[in-house]
């Protein structure tokens, strides 16, 4: 066969179909079958009629919502001040804010846990607060980076035009800067909200025994209940899809892993 550039895509294409698409198909199958392989809606109706699992869904949303808002309130000003600072070494400064994400998250949460233990004494007294702190501590850099990227690329002449046309600083910010930075905010929200619903290790490590959606998958996994776990995964996928459709994030804005390119 003649060598062609197209053919280079074949191995990765097969890989994606086998190990990215196929696992999702299997999830679908397991979510709608029971232990003996029969088709059933039990797993789905069970989730939405059980007070415990609904409570978990609600708690996950509450935790993710509060975490996202706190991250946003810290990250937006940080990104804005950095992008608009006259500091010479802006790239070094942003590095400082991003660098923690390259340190293993479990070790960072360990550090936070030791500090909180020193301050609070017994961690179990403030489970929700500690979880929000832990998640914020873990995910903050992922919120700062996309907002910073958008703000530095923002066309300054638009801001100047608004000011020339008589808008004051507040109005310029609300009518020009903020709307134009929304893509960065949206990808930041994506980077924080979904992990905050699923990263149950942060809760475990900070002694919050309440379940979030991720913990449900973990407990089904430990109990070898593939069908229940698949349904939770499917519900999470539904939430993710909904989010992606609502936010319509730009692919290039994704900053997981912390690339600055």
């Amino acid at each position, binding site marked *: 066969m003649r060598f062609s550039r197209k053919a280079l895509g074949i191995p990765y*294409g097969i890989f994606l179909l086998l190990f990215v698409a196929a696992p999702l198909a299997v999830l679908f199958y397991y979510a709608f079958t029971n232990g003996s392989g029969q088709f059933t809606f039990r797993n789905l109706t069970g989730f939405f009629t059980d007070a415990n699992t609904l409570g978990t869904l609600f708690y996950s949303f509450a935790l993710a919502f509060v975490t996202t808002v706190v991250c946003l309130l810290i990250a937006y000003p940080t990104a804005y001040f950095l992008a608009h600072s006259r500091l010479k070494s802006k790239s070094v400064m942003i590095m400082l804010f991003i660098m923690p994400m390259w340190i293993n998250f479990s070790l960072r949460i360990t550090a936070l846990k030791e500090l909180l233990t020193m301050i609070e004494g017994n961690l179990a007294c403030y489970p929700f607060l500690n979880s929000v702190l832990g998640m914020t501590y873990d995910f903050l850099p992922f919120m700062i980076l996309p907002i910073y990227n958008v703000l530095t690329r923002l066309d300054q002449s638009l801001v100047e035009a608004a000011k020339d046309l008589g808008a004051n600083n507040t109005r310029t910010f609300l009518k020009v800067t903020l709307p134009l930075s929304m893509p960065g905010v949206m990808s930041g929200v994506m980077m924080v909200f979904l992990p905050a619903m699923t990263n149950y*290790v942060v809760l475990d490590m900070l002694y919050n025994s309440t379940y979030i959606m991720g913990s449900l998958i973990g407990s089904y996994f430990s109990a070898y209940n593939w069908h229940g776990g698949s349904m939770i995964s499917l519900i999470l*996928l539904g939430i993710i899809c909904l989010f992606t459709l609502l936010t319509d994030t730009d692919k290039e804005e994704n900053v997981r892993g912390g690339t600055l390119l």
Partner: protein
Amino acid sequence: MTGKIRIGRLVFLILVLLFLYIPILLLAFYSFTNASVFGSFSSFSLKNYVTLFTTPDMQNMILGTVVLALLSSAIATVLGTSGAIGFFYSKRRTTRFFSSVNQIPVINADVVTGFSLCILLVVVLGIGKDTYIPLVLGHVALSAPFVYLSVIPKLKQMDPSLYEAALDLGATPKTALFKVIIPQLFSGIVSGFMLAITLSLDDYFIATYTKPATFDTISTYVVNATKGTHTEVKTALWALSTLIFVIVLVIVIAMNVRAAKSSSARQQRRNG
């Protein structure tokens, strides 16, 4: 901007930095003492570092994490890069289809990725976790999409006539690929590889659902250790955290110095 506002902004930035760094720096400080909790210590000591480097368990998990990261990232880089080149030159429809499949692991929650891979590979196909195949495949599936995403922009920037020119001048397609296309993509490939490494090192969920029971990565080991009551293990991990912090710091400084050098060289070229 008035001076007051500027100082206010600076104070805010410093407070955020303190929030991010105080826990890590305190942990680093106490890692050099004999303390078992923050707040009190009687003497400085290197025992945490000694424990870290002499306990076989810990040596194995550090080595295992590094080997896994290098291996899975190497595979992910080859797959992701060749995939990016292949799909970029394919029909529009093919490209669009595979880039959306490529997005799935990027936006999906890691718990779901890990769980679904475990069901497919271990439950349905019956591949034993002890073979390490599910673990390596899981990490490749997590990181290859990010390699793909960091190579694609470089392909878009590349001048398409370069490849044609190489062929016209008598290069075989293979030579043109290795001598013309890949060098053009190199910076994207390198950053994709680095990204893959950081994703693999930071992963907890995919490892938990696909790893052999006797194998631990740093993440799974740390999480298990916090549930246990071995103070010695716990404080030795403080030493590990400190070492990782120093390594990351050195890499970041080195990258910055290099970037500064190359940008000043570029400026000199432009001026001279």
